[in-house]
């Protein structure tokens, strides 16, 4: 078999194995709940029968491994269980299916993440390449300092700074642009309005992830500039720009793609805080709300989605960097 295919398959297998273990960890979080949580969900007035019925619904009368396979089988079919909220002591059940809660919000989150990625990835590549091109210039130094600062700032600090300047102080008002500080988008909004309302959250996420990607791009290219073949290209009299784009960049792709995927995976985490700041109806906010009401099925579903996205993006990064490795592509 081609060495690339076997390496990629090995990596995929490892990824699936990780996903399996992670699902076990997330599942077993319910196991760690204190024994009387039936009462705390249903309220003090719950009768013994309603508590017993609730425990039976959760399958707590079955052994743990059987419940795990029931749960993971249902998840695979797209059934994430029912929420804890909306249950009453009298046994009346107004709870909603977790899928109905999660899916519309997941779409919103993906919309925001894609928007941030579409701005951030080209921006950081351009900044990184130009910083490498004009190394040690004033431009390079200021871009570096700016990114260093934005790495150190907490996400919500960046978010509130943007709100302060663009929504509250309206510094762009002379140009007729006043961004809303709340990104309360809904599904029936036209695309333009959705983009406009999501501008500040997307900008926050962009600022947070651009720094890493830009620095990595710059470092990867500068690393290569010392190699003999670049020296050769330079001695041939090719322009500086062409040396970097045609000669250095193709070999720098692996680390760059890796850090891009890593930062897109970081978006998964950053999105939680940014959604809360801007009251954006996404899955991060759903998870935070579910954590404060201790609605475990919703928390589990969100954690599973976040973890799976994170693992898949890291997997993708590894596969791409394996596939773009010239040594593996052209084996002797």
């Amino acid at each position: 078999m081609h060495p690339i295919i076997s390496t990629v398959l090995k990596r995929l297998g490892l990824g699936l194995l990780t996903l399996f273990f992670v699902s076990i960890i997330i599942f077993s979080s319910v196991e760690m709940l204190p024994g009387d949580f039936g009462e705390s969900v249903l309220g003090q007035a719950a009768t013994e029968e309603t508590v017993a019925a609730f425990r039976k619904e959760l399958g707590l009368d079955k052994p743990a491994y059987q419940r795990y396979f029931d749960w993971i089988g249902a998840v695979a079919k797209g059934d994430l269980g029912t929420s804890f909220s909306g249950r009453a002591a009298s046994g009346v059940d107004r709870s909603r299916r977790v899928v109905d809660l999660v899916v519309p919000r997941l779409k919103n989150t993906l919309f925001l993440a894609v928007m941030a990625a579409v701005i951030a990835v080209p921006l950081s590549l351009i900044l990184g390449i130009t910083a490498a091109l004009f190394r040690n210039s004033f431009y390079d130094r200021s871009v570096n300092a700016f990114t260093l600062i934005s790495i150190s700032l907490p996400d919500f600090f960046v978010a509130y700074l943007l709100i302060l300047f663009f929504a509250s102080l309206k510094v762009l008002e002379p140009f007729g642009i006043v961004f809303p500080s709340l990104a309360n988008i809904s599904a029936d909004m036209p695309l333009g309005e959705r983009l406009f309302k999501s501008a500040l959250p997307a900008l926050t996420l962009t600022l947070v992830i651009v720094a890493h990607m830009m620095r990595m791009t710059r470092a990867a290219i500068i690393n290569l500039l010392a190699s003999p073949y670049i020296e050769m290209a330079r001695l041939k009299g090719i322009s500086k720009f062409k040396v970097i784009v045609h000669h250095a960049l193709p070999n720098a792709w692996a680390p760059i793609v890796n850090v891009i995927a890593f930062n897109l995976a970081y978006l998964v985490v950053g999105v939680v805080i940014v959604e809360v700041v801007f009251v954006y109806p996404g899955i991060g906010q759903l998870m935070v709300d579910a954590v404060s009401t201790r609605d475990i099925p919703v928390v589990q579903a969100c954690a599973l989605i976040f973890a799976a996205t994170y693992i898949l993006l890291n997997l993708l990064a590894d596969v791409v960097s394996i596939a773009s490795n010239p040594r593996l592509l052209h084996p002797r």
Partner: protein
Amino acid sequence: MSTASDKGYSAADEVGSVLEQRTRWQRVKLALKSAPISAWFGMVIVFAYIVVALFAPFIAPYAEDQIFAVPFGPWDSDHLVGTDQIGRDIFTRLIYGARNTMGIAFATTLLAFVIGGGFGLAAAISGGWIDQILSRFVDVLMAIPSLIFALMLLAVFGSSIFNIICIIAVLDSTRVFRLTRAVSMNVVVMDYLEAAKLRGEKLNWIMIHEILPNILPPMVAEFGLRFCFVFLTIASLSFLGVGIQPPTADWGSMVRENASLIQFAQYDIKAGITPLLPAGAIALLVVAVNFIVDWFLHTTSGLKDEH
């Protein structure tokens, strides 16, 4: 020591004088003298934060949970930066916040190092299947983003300060484990370690007397960086409302509580930046610690920037 000061310079004197090794304190002073301005900035900031945290009750004008008549009060002479949503003095809460937020973050980082460092050393020394099991276990834990993992565990166990410290410490100890294991792997293969083992020294003794002194510089640097991460995670959790609970003053939750003030920035810029004060306090500390760690790494390892 030469006595050059009273007799003038004498070459014989200098050659004859015994070379003295500088004491630790002298070396520290020399290193401090050559520290760049950014490192000094970092050290001054961190020192100020520590002083404020230690002496909070003496510096703060009011008590942490004392409530005044006017909620969201303006900046004036009674309340230096105004009052919060139920009328507590924000300046006082900022000072107490230094104590609570930094104290909890420090305890968490320490615990993470005890757990991660201990297991990391054990994995490096014993090798074999113990190393394999621990490493694979850590791989799985690190596959879940830590903020998400922390949120999930907080939902299960409930948010109390003790739970937060334990959960974040365990999650962050995975990173400490990886670093400790990696750096001690280089030490474990040394001859002097083999000698210690043959002498019949106990595992504990080898860990503390042979390996620890040799891996100290990267570990100290990691402690600073890890503290920043822990600090930011706890602040984020508090900001999300599932971390440190009121009435304990904490910078993350203070940002959340006063966030609505930002809407008034166009009428009163002072009110508008009030919620940014605790967030800025967090950011400043993180930047300061990063400056110190940069300089520390530079001097201890001779690590140079790429240019």
